[in-house]
């Protein structure tokens, strides 16, 4: 698991890896686009309905992120884990209203008095898609596998690290014994797999669960077909215990170019576009006025931050990487962030489709949302930033550049994702803001940021994670325990933060079962993280997505009031989507057809006249 991948995980934002081929195709189309953009004439005007002929209701979703694996033990990207949510039921789900744990495979659960034994009652009305009954044994086997096989712990190992034993005394009873109290026991985001299918798997690190279809599952949908970077096809599980989905089929179709996906939505080829990570302001604005298209905007689960390299080191104490030593000074880190006008980032880059950054956890999770107090607030103040840098000993030289103790001017490399336009845009602002402070900056935009990131070869980096209703995971990635064992290993750490105070708080919150007290500790952790200045949250981007109302009548957002649809903490959106019964497939683009035909005729006529004239002028030369 690498930062880039993590940045696209279930817990992280849907940033897709690089796709060179798609870009080449886009390049080939570039000239055509340039020419035809002004005309906006659909070359293929007949809208292709996403539905098959004989009344089968299909919901098509445009996606761009590649599937890393369909094995629940390996998959970490947002798309893959969303698909696994649809095909495998978890012990508990999150309520679409306020994200409190609701029954999933488990109908009820209770801890023992010493907080170390948890007993879950497994529902008896759930069946696997091949007809077998879902029992507590399946769940016990799944957890046990993750505890005993290191390869099976790749994706979700952090949940079971503290488990002492798992057993299934009866088909409806699951007992988990812990080493220490664990607050995340009602938020175990682990897909439960059928033991009778999975027990034959030999090597969990290689098995990607994409060979024999349909894939046996117990979620609201059954995976029936998958072709890498082409489509993922699922059919409704009519026997799903919570009730069958309203659509018969759900297809995730690949559009590597976001503009192409938006065009497909306009034409009705797809029912839903989420964008990667969101529709751009221009796209959202142009779709807003369209007939039969609804633009949905909800508070995002993501934070968008500027991470600072704290001097990468491994658990064995060995230092590596080449982060700038001046960044080890907290005053420098704070000064850098104080020169960032977060309001301008919201207004100009996100154009209002984001909320100004405060603490580590987005305001959407109100229980854990924290704001810096007036005294610790690092608000935008370039003058104070300059003062802080002066104090830290980085004074301006004659050329107006701030120099370090070695006499060399400060110049930071900022790692940015070449696939994310927001990184590049914010990077240009940073360059000018820091330039005014006298600090140089090189924007290092790469398609694959993983390698320099893991090697600690960066000074600052654009960072972002999607946060779950239970914040344990995003908090755990900043503990010393998440550091790689040696410089050669890969740790779960986000950017090598290791702070004793923070770690103590982390251990305390994990063992705290009282939710109010736990929230209080989590807020202290956020406060500590804010002061350290290694993770500077600039914004919480909104989810901006669009769907066709003539294909989807209604769909559940999460939170129900003004929430997002794609990448929810659960299967609510696709499970609840109601197809629109209208058959209004054509129309809408007739003006486009007329314009296109007229333009074509004009071009042909002009060409004809031109050639006729040429023939006349060369008449003398011909025989």
């Amino acid at each position, binding site marked *: 698991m690498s930062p880039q991948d993590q940045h696209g995980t279930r817990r992280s934002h849907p940033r897709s890896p690089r796709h060179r081929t798609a*870009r080449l195709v886009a390049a080939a189309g570039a000239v055509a686009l340039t020419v035809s953009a002004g005309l906006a004439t659909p070359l293929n005007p007949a809208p292709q309905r996403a539905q098959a002929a004989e009344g089968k209701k299909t919901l098509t979703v445009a996606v761009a992120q590649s599937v890393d694996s369909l094995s629940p033990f390996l998959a970490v990207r947002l798309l893959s884990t969303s698909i696994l949510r649809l095909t495998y039921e978890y012990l508990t789900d999150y309520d679409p209203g306020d994200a409190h744990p609701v029954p999933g495979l488990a109908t009820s659960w209770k801890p023992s008095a010493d907080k170390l034994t948890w007993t879950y009652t497994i529902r008896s009305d759930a069946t696997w898609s091949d007809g077998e009954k879902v029992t507590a044994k399946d769940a016990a086997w799944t957890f046990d596998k993750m505890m005993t096989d290191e390869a099976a712990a790749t994706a979700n190992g952090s949940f079971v690290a503290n488990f002492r034993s798992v057993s299934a005394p009866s088909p409806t009873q699951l007992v988990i014994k812990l080493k220490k109290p664990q607050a995340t026991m009602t938020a175990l985001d682990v897909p439960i797999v059928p033991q009778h299918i999975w027990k034959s798997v030999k090597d969990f690190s290689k098995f990607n669960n994409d060979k024999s279809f349909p894939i046996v599952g117990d979620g609201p949908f059954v995976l029936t077909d998958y072709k890498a970077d082409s489509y993922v096809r699922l059919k409704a599980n009519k026997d799903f215990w919570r009730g069958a989905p309203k659509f018969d089929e759900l297809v995730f179709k690949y559009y590597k170019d976001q503009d192409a996906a938006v065009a497909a939505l306009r034409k009705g080829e797809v029912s839903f576009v989420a964008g990667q990570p969101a529709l751009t*302001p*221009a796209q959202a604005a142009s779709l807003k006025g369209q007939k039969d298209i609804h633009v949905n905007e909800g508070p995002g689960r993501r934070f968008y931050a500027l991470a600072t390299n704290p001097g990468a080191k491994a658990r064995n104490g060995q230092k590596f990487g080449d982060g700038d030593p001046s960044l080890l000074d907290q005053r420098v880190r704070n000064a850098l962030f104080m020169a960032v006008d977060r309001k301008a980032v919201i207004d100009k880059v996100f154009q209002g489709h984001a909320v100004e950054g405060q603490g580590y956890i987005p305001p959407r999770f109100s229980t854990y949302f924290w704001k810096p107090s007036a005294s610790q607030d690092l608000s935008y103040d370039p003058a104070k930033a300059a003062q802080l840098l002066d104090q830290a000993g980085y004074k301006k030289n004659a050329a107006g550049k701030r120099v370090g103790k070695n006499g060399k001017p400060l110049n930071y490399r900022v790692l940015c994702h070449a696939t994310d336009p927001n990184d590049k845009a914010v*990077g240009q602002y940073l360059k000018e803001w820091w330039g005014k402070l006298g600090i140089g900056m090189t924007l290092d*935009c790469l398609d694959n940021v993983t390698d320099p990131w893991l090697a600690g070869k960066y000074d600052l980096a654009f960072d972002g994670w999607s946060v779950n209703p239970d914040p344990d995971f995003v908090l755990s990635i900043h503990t010393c325990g998440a550091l790689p064992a040696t410089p050669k290993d890969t740790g779960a750490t986000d950017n090598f933060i290791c702070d004793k105070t923070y770690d103590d708080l982390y251990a305390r919150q994990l063992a705290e079962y009282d939710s109010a007290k736990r929230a209080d500790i989590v807020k202290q952790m956020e406060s500590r993280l804010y002061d350290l200045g290694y993770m500077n949250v600039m914004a919480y981007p909104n989810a901006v997505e669009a769907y066709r109302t003539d294909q989807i009548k209604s769909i559940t957002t999460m939170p129900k009031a003004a929430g997002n649809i794609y990448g929810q903490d659960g299967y609510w959106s696709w499970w609840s989507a109601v197809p629109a019964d209208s058959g209004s497939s054509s129309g809408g683009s007739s003006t486009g057809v007329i314009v296109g035909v007229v333009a074509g005729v004009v071009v042909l006529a002009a060409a004809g006249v031109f050639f006729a004239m040429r023939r006349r002028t060369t008449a003398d030369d011909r025989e």
Partner: protein
Amino acid sequence: MTADAAPATPGRLARQRRRQSAARFWRSYRTHRAGMIGLAALVLFALMALTAPLTVGSGVAGVTDAPGAPLEAPSLDFPLGTDRFGRSVLGLVVWGSRVSLLVGLLAAVLSVVIGTVVGVTAGHFKGAYATVLMRITDWFLVMPALVLAIALATVMTRSLGTVILAIGVTSWPTTARLVRAQTLAVESRPYIERAKALGGGHWHIMSRHVLPNVMPLVLAQTTLMISSSVLAEATLAFLGLGDPTVISWGGLLQDAREAGAVSAGDWWYLVPPGIAIALVALAFTLCGRAVESVLNPRLGVAR
């Protein structure tokens, strides 16, 4: 000192000869209407690029003090609208011409220099050396240049130098082939044999006899190569392989695509840089064709 009083030194004679041939070249070039149109366009673009610091100023690329709102439609204040940061697209296109032309020129020069060196040496030395060199050339020739350039630009840091290098080292094989053919033709002439008999070494033959004879070809090739280099630069920048903080025409197209201007129908963001690229490439091609037909009489049956 008057002209007739001056002694007819060899240098003076050479200068005179060169002046005459330049005048002859210009007389012949003037008869190519398309070439003149291309030249006029080029002069205009060059003026635009050179005077950009006076007309629009480097401040046009600044994002923090952008004058307009993002993606404004064309108006009197912004004749070509604004980009995603609220900067004037007209100003950006003018400012971007500097990078696009500079990269196009330098990459073309680099490519032609590599091609000439390979071509002349391969044509002169022959034997195993030439065989190996020409096989390498063939290899570069059949490799899709764009893919190779993308690979190069990806592994190296993103900067203008990288783009120049990536274009330069992938586009030289055609020049090498052309120059080698011309070198072979020149070297088979009797005076080369005489020069050798008089003790002219490899360096003397190549620099004094072969190079001046392939120079017209190289000149024409350079002019033609610039247009493809400008296009290649735009392509690489459009694919996001350029330095994102540098304004170029291809980079503007890439910005427009990323901002979703294509599906939003914000044509003013896409069309101006696109047209600028097309015009510059066309102008260089027209000039190159004209130069080619002036210098190579066998091609010169232009209507």
